[in-house]
């Protein structure tokens, strides 16, 4: 009896979060799913009809959607790989005990994170300018010809990913650094006494202990980057054409440029469905699921 009562009280601990999130997400999501099956748009605004799967068929048989979907994958994976690599590298560097001024460097490296992202993005937009931006001016010092960052598709991707890297690496660095610092010092000293080389210590102590952290951070980063709206919206707006457009920006544009709320809903439903599926698969196979629940 008291056991069951306990369980009931235990639920009270997690109930607030569940209710808060459900309150804020459940109705909007159900509504979004609902209007994705209707002809609700600015021109069928107060009265609209159920159209079944028609919107989905239009979207899935059109070419642009698939292009945008591929872009979303490029954006996510393309951003995530360098972010993790750079974050990990810097964390390793900062974790060297004989390095002086570590906390000063760490402070400086945190600056991109500490500054409001949308402001930084607007600044970066100016800095990438072909003719007047500082990036090309600095490259010119090294004898590199001005790069047209906005108009050439591969360059636009490079610009987006580099900017996103700048925005995000402090987060990855600090998470990795704190994880590295949580590895007990004794492990290393014992290994050193046993004659393990620096590389061997990294290979057999650091990496295995970091595996879960990396997986956790990678999955979190994946879901965040997949729906990361501002870098693309502010820097390229998905252009030129739709060459750098991702689903979340595309959905936004469908709603707010074209006033086609039903199609915006279709894009978001598909976007979320894919993301959820991917996240669950990744959680399952990385073993993080066991760790976090």
């Amino acid at each position, binding site marked *: 009896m008291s056991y069951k009562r*306990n369980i009931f009280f*235990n639920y009270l*601990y*997690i109930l607030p*979060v*569940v209710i*808060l*999130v459900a*309150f*804020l*997400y*459940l*109705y*909007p999501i159900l*509504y*979004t799913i609902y209007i994705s099956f209707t002809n609700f748009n600015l021109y069928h605004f107060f009265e609209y009809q159920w159209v079944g799967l028609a919107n989905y068929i239009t979207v899935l048989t059109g070419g642009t959607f698939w292009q945008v979907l591929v872009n979303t994958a490029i954006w996510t994976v393309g951003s995530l790989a360098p972010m993790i690599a750079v974050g990990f*590298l*810097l964390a390793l*560097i900062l974790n*060297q005990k*004989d*390095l002086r001024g570590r*906390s000063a*460097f760490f*402070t*400086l*490296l*945190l*600056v991109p994170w*500490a*500054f*409001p992202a*949308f*402001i930084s993005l607007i*600044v970066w937009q*100016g*800095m990438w300018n072909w003719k007047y931006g*500082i990036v090309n001016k600095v490259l010119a010092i090294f004898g590199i010809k001005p790069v047209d960052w906005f108009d050439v598709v591969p360059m636009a991707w490079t610009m987006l990913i580099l900017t996103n890297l700048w925005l995000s690496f402090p987060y990855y660095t*600090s998470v990795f650094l*704190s994880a590295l*610092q*949580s*590895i007990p010092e004794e492990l290393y000293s014992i290994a050193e006494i046993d004659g393990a080389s620096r590389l061997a210590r990294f290979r057999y102590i650091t990496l295995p202990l970091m595996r879960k*952290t990396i997986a956790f951070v990678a999955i*979190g980063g994946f879901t965040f980057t997949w*729906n990361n*709206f501002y870098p693309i919206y502010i820097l390229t707006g998905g252009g030129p054409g739709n060459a750098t457009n991702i*689903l*979340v*920006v595309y*959905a936004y544009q469908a*709603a707010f440029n074209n006033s086609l*709320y039903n199609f915006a809903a279709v894009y*978001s439903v598909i976007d*979320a469905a894919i993301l*959820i599926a991917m*996240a669950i698969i990744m*959680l399952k196979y990385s073993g993080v*699921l066991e*760790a976090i629940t």
Partner: protein
Amino acid sequence: MKAWDVLRLGISYVILAVAAAIAVFPIYYIVITSLSDIPTIASISIGSLIPQPRGLTLDAYKGILFGNPFLLWLRNSLILAGATVAITILLAFLSGVALSRLNVPGKRALMITVYVLTFFPMTVTVLPLYLMFATLHLINTYYGLILAYSSGTSIYGAYLVKLFVDSIPKEYEEAAMIDGLSRLGAFVRILLPLSKPVLAFLGLIAFMGAYTDYAMANVFITSSDLWTLTLGMWYLSFVNRSTLYNVFAAFAVLMGIPIMAVFLAFQRYLTRMYTMSGVKG
């Protein structure tokens, strides 16, 4: 070995110096622009990176601080961010501890489901959210925004707290409970202080999210009495089809300084977030 160490440290310093320079440069750029009398953000020459005393002016700052209700905007931003931090920490701590310590059948499925809901892009669900808020009279209030800001961070925070508390030995609270504390009492007295690093980190993220948000504030706040810093910034900087970059930059500096101060004050917690788990004993 000695030579290798020197090389290693040398390379480390170079990498750190370059990374730090790149990290700080755009902020430096903003500061220069804010002092400029020219409203641009793309420098016309590389020489303009070094401020010329002749071109320096505080006009943009004066205009923002004395020509506009900057303090009111600041107050609103701080209220929203402060309340978001409080709610986030409270909810994340409670549910994080429960996830880690308590027997709650089905918690895994439940929390995953809830977490997955937050994958839905807010950019589009904002219309139904607006309709809901409108019905509940949450438009033009602090409450609506605070709830919206805290939801994502609390669920994410619950996982962070859970991971963190997992690394704290159970014996700590058990000992306290034998000493006569209730379970909640043990959580609050023992686990709460121990969780300070992760909660500080969480608070920081929650603060940043609320303080720098533009999109939601723009939708749910129309009354100018409730404007936040970001809304004020937009209003002053983006006029017609062009941007007054010096005003924008000055605003960015005014807005960015407090947050950077908070960030740096919390910095030690960032690196200690996981260190507690080293006390596995």
